[in-house]
């Protein structure tokens, strides 16, 4: 109506900061590189560089007699991984990692399903906290606590006795491969501790994948004549596979690398993690430790390839 707009006034006085942010706005690539250079430097130089440096040491020679490392390149360390004793360590760790991943998925799925589909607001927050709270406690404290819980005369045994299940426990502990003299020195006990400790890493990805599942898909399935069981098998389970895969990558790789639980719970015998720890800590055989470090990396690469082949990432 009689108003004139004097829009040029704010354009003239510009602080250097405004000038800089305008420059970043005009050149998105500059903005992106400023953001990415520090983490890329960290990731490239410090993380990947040191990892490659470590693996390179796997080719060095360790002199058993003088207990010294010489930079003479050899494949002997990698060959030694296939010694019966070392291969046994790898096989034992791998079996445990697979068993723990499967059991975690089975235990986590109902919890994740309940969280995603039936809780809202405060109940959902309660479940999030309940799932994550154990992660706030020190890992070593939890592992030690489990040795006491599972020990002879411990809480676990007390419960088993009062439920009248002592013969069942005895039968389990005498089974080869999973048994031991008590729960805390058995494979079964070690397996239970692993499942307990890694469970949140399985629950949360499955919960996230179920949360993303639109309710209309479940309605559509029922509408087309599928019973709840068919809907679960044909729709819910296939669409939660990416979550199960993501969770199992955590449980699998964390079990492969762990070196504390195998020392505290279960029968004697090294795991890959405790073997690396022993080789470089007690013995000082850095090349052999480096060679062992390669094992989980290769196993996880194979695992990812299998998971991808099974189509777990197709629905992402």
């Amino acid at each position, binding site marked *: 109506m009689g108003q004139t707009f004097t829009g040029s006034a704010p354009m003239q006085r510009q602080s250097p900061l405004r000038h800089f942010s305008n420059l970043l706005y005009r050149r998105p690539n500059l903005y992106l590189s400023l953001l990415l250079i520090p983490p890329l430097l960290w990731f490239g130089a410090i993380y990947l560089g040191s990892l490659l440096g470590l693996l390179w040491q796997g080719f060095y020679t360790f002199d058993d007699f003088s207990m010294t490392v010489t930079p003479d390149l050899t494949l002997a360390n990698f060959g030694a991984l296939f010694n019966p004793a070392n291969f046994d360590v790898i096989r034992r760790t791998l079996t445990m990692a697979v068993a723990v991943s499967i059991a975690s998925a089975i235990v986590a799925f109902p919890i994740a399903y309940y969280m995603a589909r039936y809780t809202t607001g405060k109940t959902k927050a309660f479940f999030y906290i309940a799932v994550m709270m154990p992660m706030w406690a020190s890992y070593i404290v939890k592992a030690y606590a489990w040795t006491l819980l599972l020990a002879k005369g411990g809480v676990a045994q007390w419960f088993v006795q009062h439920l009248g299940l002592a013969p069942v426990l005895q039968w389990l502990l005498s089974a080869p491969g999973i048994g031991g003299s008590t729960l805390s020195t058995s494979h079964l006990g070690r397996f239970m501790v692993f499942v307990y400790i890694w469970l949140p890493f399985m629950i949360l990805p499955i919960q996230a994948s179920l949360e993303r599942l639109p309710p209309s898909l479940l309605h559509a399935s*029922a509408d*087309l*004549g599928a019973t709840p069981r068919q809907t679960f098998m044909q729709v819910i389970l296939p669409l939660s596979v990416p979550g199960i895969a993501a969770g199992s990558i955590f449980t699998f790789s964390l079990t492969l690398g762990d070196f504390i639980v195998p020392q505290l719970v279960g029968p004697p015998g090294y795991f890959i993690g405790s073997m690396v720890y022993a080789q470089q800590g007690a013995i000082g055989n850095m090349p052999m430790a480096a060679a062992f470090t390669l094992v989980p990396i290769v196993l996880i690469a194979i695992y990812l390839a299998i998971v991808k082949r099974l189509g777990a990432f197709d629905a992402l």
Partner: protein
Amino acid sequence: MTHAVQFTHVSRLFGEVKAVDRVSIDIEDGEFFSMLGPSGSGKTTCLRLIAGFEQPSAGSIRIHGQEAAGLPPYQRDVNTVFQDYALFPHMNVRDNVAYGLKVKGVGKAERIKRADEALSMVALEGYGARKPVQLSGGQRQRVALARALVNRPRVLLLDEPLGALDLKLREQMQSELKKLQRQLGITFIFVTHDQTEALSMSDRVAVFNKGRIEQVDTPRNLYMKPATTFVAEFVGTSNVVRGELAQALSGNPDAFSIRPEHIRFAEGVAASRDVEVSGVLHDIQYQGSATRYEVKLDSGQTLTVSQANSQWLDTGAHHQAGQRVTVRWAREAMIALHDAPRESPEIAPCEAH
């Protein structure tokens, strides 16, 4: 003859809210029936009650004579086309379409054959191997349609299926849906908030407002004889006249409605049955096929007048805003209105058949 779907005093409460409030409808077999209303009027809840995703709090729902209350969705002979299509993202188009047959145990060769037939019915031959994400919105919608029709349901429910499509595609799909419905002879129950869509496709339309049905009628009757103020205002554009002005114009204090296109500018001598009123031309909107005028009457009320631009030489071009005009309409064009639906509007006879 049994009805395809019959609601008898059906209510659905969500806590204190009556989403559906004592609704009774009879939907004939083979009919294209629309449920029209603003969002939150209860039309989608009615659809979900038929599909079985909701259970009624009170009343009875019969599908082809069989009581449906308590039956889960997978035991009902109805299929739904969802608003967001709800295609299974991990299956290709053919597996999506064949899903209903698969869960019912139809053999593989048979279900592939029928899925491909259903795809060709919606003009998507050769798309069977694609994933839903590789399709456009219009194509996904056709897959959703094929997926529902492959089961040969006796009643097809459509929950605002055209809402996400652009105007041209929507108009095309409207005529295709109508053609498909005639060809298959299935009962279509179509939920929409778009009154043009409801009028152009349906045999009959139920107008919903606040969980109740205001009127069930043919599109023509709905437009020409709206039973309530709500219907008059929701379906098309209406000038609703009340109070003193109504008394002065019609000789009756009841509210009445007059359609914008039934009003014309006074030229020559008025016929004896004509009603005349004058005011100031307030605003002119040129809309292509028609021109819309806002006339501010001396009583303060605004009337909307619409004139078709049916002549090439634009007859309305000489009107200007601010000009004083007299408008008139035939007394027969005035529709007496009631604020609330009369009792039992649901037993309205099915005049389309």
